């Protein structure tokens, strides 16, 4: 089977993000970028399926600037077979991303597409669901377990939802978006990193795809959130209860 994984380049989740004073974006000087953590989980899941189902090909795709090569190389080093980078320097919304992915899924003829549930920069949580609708495919978002049938024709997915865990099933092709508990991604090994250098990484300028990717939701500006001030350090439990009762009046 063929599995496509969508991989986004995002700022390191451990980095401190600051908004530029003029509100045009975030401060990117010295900012470290990584594979979106949820996408890393999606790659790992694809690799685990590949390890179980012989003849599986894992293709990773990213949309963004040329710099996203770095994140694709990481995915290749983890074990993906080849990579596609759609070069788009302009700002995209999730509809644009999903349209580009739709085109790639159709040309690649993928059986299963894995995405992260959420990109930790825009925090949109949209692209996988939008892609599913564009393709007319079933979806299982927020996956914590993916099980393929013995003939790889259908999938049963456990989803992290409000109030517990839900199982859904569908015939492939389909879309799965990864949640945190799906797996623990492997690190790229040294031989993996060496091999990755020789793997195919194809670049496609977004214009060549002939898709309208004008954002339907346009970010006009960014602002810093209001800052919370650190309050008091209390000396004892009694003092805490007293203050919550008499000063904060919340108990």
């Amino acid at each position, binding site marked *: 089977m063929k599995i496509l994984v969508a991989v986004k380049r995002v700022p390191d989740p451990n980095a401190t993000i600051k908004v530029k004073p003029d509100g045009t974006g975030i401060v990117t000087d010295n900012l470290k970028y990584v594979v979106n953590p949820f996408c890393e989980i999606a790659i790992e899941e694809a690799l685990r399926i590949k390890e179980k189902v012989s003849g599986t090909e894992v293709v990773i795709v990213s949309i963004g600037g040329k710099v996203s090569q770095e994140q694709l190389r990481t995915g290749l080093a983890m074990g993906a077979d080849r990579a596609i980078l759609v070069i788009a320097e302009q700002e995209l919304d999730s*509809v644009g991303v999903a349209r580009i992915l739709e085109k790639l899924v159709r040309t690649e003829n993928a059986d299963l597409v894995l995405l992260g549930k959420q990109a930790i920069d825009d925090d949109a949580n949209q692209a996988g669901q939008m892609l599913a609708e564009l393709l007319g495919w079933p979806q299982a978002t927020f996956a914590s377990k993916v099980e393929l049938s013995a003939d790889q024709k259908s999938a049963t997915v456990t989803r992290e939802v409000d109030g517990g865990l839900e199982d859904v099933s569908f015939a492939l092709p389909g879309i799965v978006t990864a949640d945190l508990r799906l797996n623990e991604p492997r690190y790229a090994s040294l031989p993996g990193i060496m091999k990755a250098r020789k793997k195919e990484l194809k670049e496609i300028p977004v214009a060549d795809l002939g898709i309208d990717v004008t954002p339907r939701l346009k970010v006009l500006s960014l602002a810093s959130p209001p800052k919370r001030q650190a309050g008091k350090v209390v000396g*004892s439990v009694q003092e805490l209860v007293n203050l919550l009762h008499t000063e904060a009046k919340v108990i």
Partner: protein
Amino acid sequence: MSNVLVFAEHAHGKFPKTTLVALAAGKDAAAKFGGDCYAALLGKGVEGLAADLAEYGVKKVFVVDDAALEHYVADAYAAALSQLAKDKGTDIVIATATAIGKDLLPRVAIRLDAGMASDITDINADGTILRPMYAGNAIATAKFESQYKVISVRATAFDAAPKSGKAEIEKASVSIDAASRKMKFVSFNEITSNRPVLDEARIVVSGGRGLKSGENFTTVLEPLVDAMGAAMGASRAAVDAGFVPNDLQVGQTGKVVAPELYIAVGISGAIQHLAGMKDSKVIVAINKDAEAPIFQVSDYGLVADLFKAVPELKEEIEKLKH
């Protein structure tokens, strides 16, 4: 002028607070875009719920009762909701960013050829919206460039809609073709608890890796949670370690809460956790490490061993009640 359609999520025959938040946001959007606010009730055998929904000040309740909607599944629900929006001329579709809202609305957006804003916290008078990005480190102002607009609302961003008036109820039918019914609901392993749910609680007590085990959640933290009549939450580390179920995770990629009182126990205060609780009215932190970042956002900080402080706190709370 744009009319608004609010997706009224229901569970166990009731509308949770999150749905009342969507209704409040819907009415706010209708006021700002100069239209009326309608509610959509989807499911099988749900007509009996319509009367309740009609009391929250919407113009009309549309009921789509269809066997294909017995269990929530994204494809069939997206087909139904988008068709209803088209049939009824509502350009704006709103739901709360619950697990279902997040799963459903992006598909609706595609069907309506709409732009979509997720997890919004406010709607400006000019129709632009505010939404957090980068784990809440940036607040974006964004503008729709599409006729149809799809919006998911952060559960803490609006007060629940109050009851007012009695709207007309209209049965509507949609056709959900086989191509939109590829997903099958298999089962729901629901975690039942007598505690208030995170979204609705006045007080939330959350535990982190500092609790060290699921057993300690039960024996140390839960007595405090129950003494305070609170909801229980957790950090990702506690959920990952299997101490507590997944749906208790508070944070950037879990639930966002803003109770009157949030007590973080044995939680360091990573930015991803803060993203889910920093709008709480009063924050208390109990942590043995005086340098833990959680203290930078706490109104009251107690540097202590939680295994000593939490039982003591429970005792003091009980004394206060008598």
